[in-house]
């Protein structure tokens, strides 16, 4: 018996619209939630046009571009939503279409999984979906592949449209304080090597998060508790969570080791998970939340590393003291109605229009700046002005770093404040002439 996908009818409308367009074939991604209980598809997004390829490449599909698109889209999905598979709209009903789909779905899963910092769980679904729509006949063929088995063959699956699939989905969220300090090795200070060290630190931190105790609405719930138990429909849709950590005992012989410096990541992130409304279990909520916590931090750090590597030629990344804001998470509703949101990361020197541009390019979402939810995370200057009203601790003015991209000729005065209750106030100050 194959899998059954319950698909929001907004996806049907979207795919229909794509059928009417001249560019053939059209590929894209299917986004939703796959659990052992149910499979839901809530969104679809076409592969964006590649700037370089102005000439129609006929029937050939750019596999690398599709997978790169999938990787970027994956970063824009909060917990609970993921790329479930690929679709193709083409009149070609032959074997090549199926072969292409198979190639794409394996490549996409490969790339996305390689970026995960968590161990796969026993109850993870490892099947991905492929959808072929023939624009002329409108015939829809849906198949799944077991993507962890390179020899697996296609299995037929059901594809059923329904309206309001995610209208009563549940949201589980928290704000979490990150506090990581890792040593840098001697004599290797390139941005690339820095990225490797950070990854090691992230893995250790991810392990702590994985082992943490999770409280939902202030309680430690047994694994199989249904979150929505005892409720009538649509009564409670949001749950707060808390994570309690206990560090692992580190007992190595060399407590003090030589190093070439250190790197820290400190601040608060907002983590969010959406769960289907069909009796979701607390175990699932906990697993998805912990994964979102880890991936949102890892994604941002990686984005910053990518920026720094790109500017390696500039002297910036070789400075002895470097302080950078990680991009903040911004949310955007998928539809005017319904609780689901996607997200993007806004660097401190970007305007919101760049966020809406990316949402359009990557997820084909038409959003206005007013639709964006920027209240979940704050940059240092906004936090600072709020703190001035509340705090009893002395603060120092945090000036927005003045730079255009990473090539500025300005004096950069950057101040990072950690005023969380977890530490006594800690200030990192650097002044460098660029």
């Amino acid at each position, binding site marked *: 018996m194959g899998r059954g996908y319950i698909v929001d009818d907004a996806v049907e409308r979207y795919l229909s619209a794509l059928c009417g367009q001249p560019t053939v074939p059209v590929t894209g991604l299917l986004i939703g939630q796959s659990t052992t209980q149910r499979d839901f598809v809530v969104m679809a997004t076409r592969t964006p046009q590649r700037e370089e390829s102005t000439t129609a490449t006929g029937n050939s599909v750019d596999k690398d571009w599709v997978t790169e698109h999938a990787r970027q889209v994956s970063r824009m999905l909060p917990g609970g939503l993921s790329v479930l598979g690929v679709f193709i709209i083409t009149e070609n009903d032959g074997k090549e279409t199926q072969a292409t789909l198979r190639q794409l779905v394996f490549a996409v899963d490969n790339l996305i999984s390689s970026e995960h910092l968590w161990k796969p769980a026993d109850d993870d679904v490892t099947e991905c979906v492929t959808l072929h729509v023939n624009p002329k006949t409108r015939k829809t063929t849906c198949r799944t592949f077991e993507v962890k088995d390179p020899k697996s063959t296609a299995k037929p699956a059901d594809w059923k449209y329904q309206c309001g699939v995610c209208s009563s989905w549940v949201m589980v969220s928290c704000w979490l304080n990150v506090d990581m300090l890792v040593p840098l090795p001697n004599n290797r200070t390139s941005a690339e090597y820095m990225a490797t060290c950070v990854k090691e630190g992230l893995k250790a931190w991810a392990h702590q998060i994985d082992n943490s105790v999770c409280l939902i609405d202030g309680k*430690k719930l047994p694994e199989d508790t249904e979150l929505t138990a005892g409720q009538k429909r649509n009564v409670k849709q949001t749950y707060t969570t808390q994570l309690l950590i206990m560090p692992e005992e580190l007992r190595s012989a060399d407590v003090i080791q030589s190093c070439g410096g250190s790197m820290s990541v400190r601040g608060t992130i907002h983590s969010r998970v959406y769960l289907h409304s069909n009796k979701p279990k607390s175990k699932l909520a906990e697993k998805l939340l912990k994964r979102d916590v880890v991936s949102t931090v890892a994604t941002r750090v990686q984005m910053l590393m990518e920026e720094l590597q790109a500017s390696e030629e500039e002297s910036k990344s070789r400075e002895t003291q470097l302080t950078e804001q990680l991009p903040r998470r911004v949310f955007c509703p998928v539809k005017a109605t319904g609780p689901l949101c996607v997200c993007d990361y806004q660097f401190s020197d970007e305007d919101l229009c760049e966020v809406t541009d990316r949402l359009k390019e990557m997820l084909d979402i038409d959003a206005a700046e007013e639709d964006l939810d920027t209240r979940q*995370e704050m940059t240092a200057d906004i936090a600072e002005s709020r703190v001035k009203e509340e705090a009893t601790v002395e603060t120092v003015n945090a000036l927005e770093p003045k730079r255009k991209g990473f090539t500025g000729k300005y004096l950069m005065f950057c101040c990072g404040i950690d005023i969380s209750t977890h530490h006594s106030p800690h200030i990192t100050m650097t002044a460098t002439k660029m």
Partner: protein
Amino acid sequence: MVVVHSHPTVTGTILRVRGPLELKCQLGSTDVFQIQKVISGTFEALRSQVKSEACVLSVCDSPVIIWPNKGVRATPEEITPVNLCEDLNQWIQTDEQESFGKKSGKKKSKKSSAVSVINLHLMMEVTNSGSLPAPILSRTVQKSHFLATTLPIDCVVCTSSDSTIKDACEHLMEALTHQLCEMEKVTLQHMNGTTLLVPEAFHFLLPEPKGLMTVVYPAGVPDSQLVTQRKELHQQYELPVDKSYFRRANAYHFPGEPYRDGYLRNPHLALTHPILDDGKVYLVQGIYSYHHYMQDRMDDNGWGCAYRSLQTICSWFQQQGYVEHPVPTHKEIQQALVDVGDKQSSFVGSRQWIGSIEVQAVLNQLLSVTSKIMFVKYVAKQHLVSIHVYVDNLDSL
């Protein structure tokens, strides 16, 4: 039969909080004073962390979690700050229980005069209200040193039957802060260039009314090098110097805690004592570990009985803190006899019996313990031997 001071007991409820705390910092300079400043700063940050609202105490094997610095709030909701500490026992899941909740009223837990220990984990809440800024990445490039370890926090607080959870939390927070101060002191005291010894906490049970108290020792420094500290402690607590109280081997063993080496302790206590018409039963005082045939992958079935008895006796001396010599293996026992000239070198590795004479010789050779052998048909009162312990170079303390 050996007569020793009776082992004092603890009554009431002991709350024991354990949990590793990360000690991490970059040591930018090689100047000793600067290094100490950075380390002290890191300890200060840990003290703030422990006093903050993020500090959480989780009761082991139970759904109970307490925020001691947030008005002693707890989950489940039924637990309030004014509840008695001993009420927490009702929430702790024992092996008999299947469900994860309060024990039913009908199953009343055995009320014994023995001490009950409630174990708690020290944890930190990393989630907050979200009013803090998004993350910042800072990097310092400087050839220097990095300190990374975890402090094995281990605090105990003894409560009486009318102590509330609020009282207990206050005392626990004091104990945690105090322990961090002690650990900072010990760390800085024993720092040498780029070697840092991890401070470890040990609990010792002193005669009434002093009770249970905690001392921090640096890991890796043997007891023999900590004589000064122990002398100070003996003076401070007005304890006699001919008995050790503060050697690591004297550490209080909490009921229900398994011994790391896996050997049973004092199995005779679990047996029914014989009822004699015209005799009296005298029991060993103190703690020994039970050694018998076939242990330690040593097949000495039928010939090793005296070796095992000897091991048991040696364990008593070690665990009361009279000697540091670990329990000897068969080979070590045989080698000791060769060393004193009692046996040929071919004796080592053989499966030959030994008797009381050899046991006496080995006790003398390995532990510097002298003993007297008496040959009697039956043991009468005048034959009861009290063993005097002579320890060579060190005071007993």
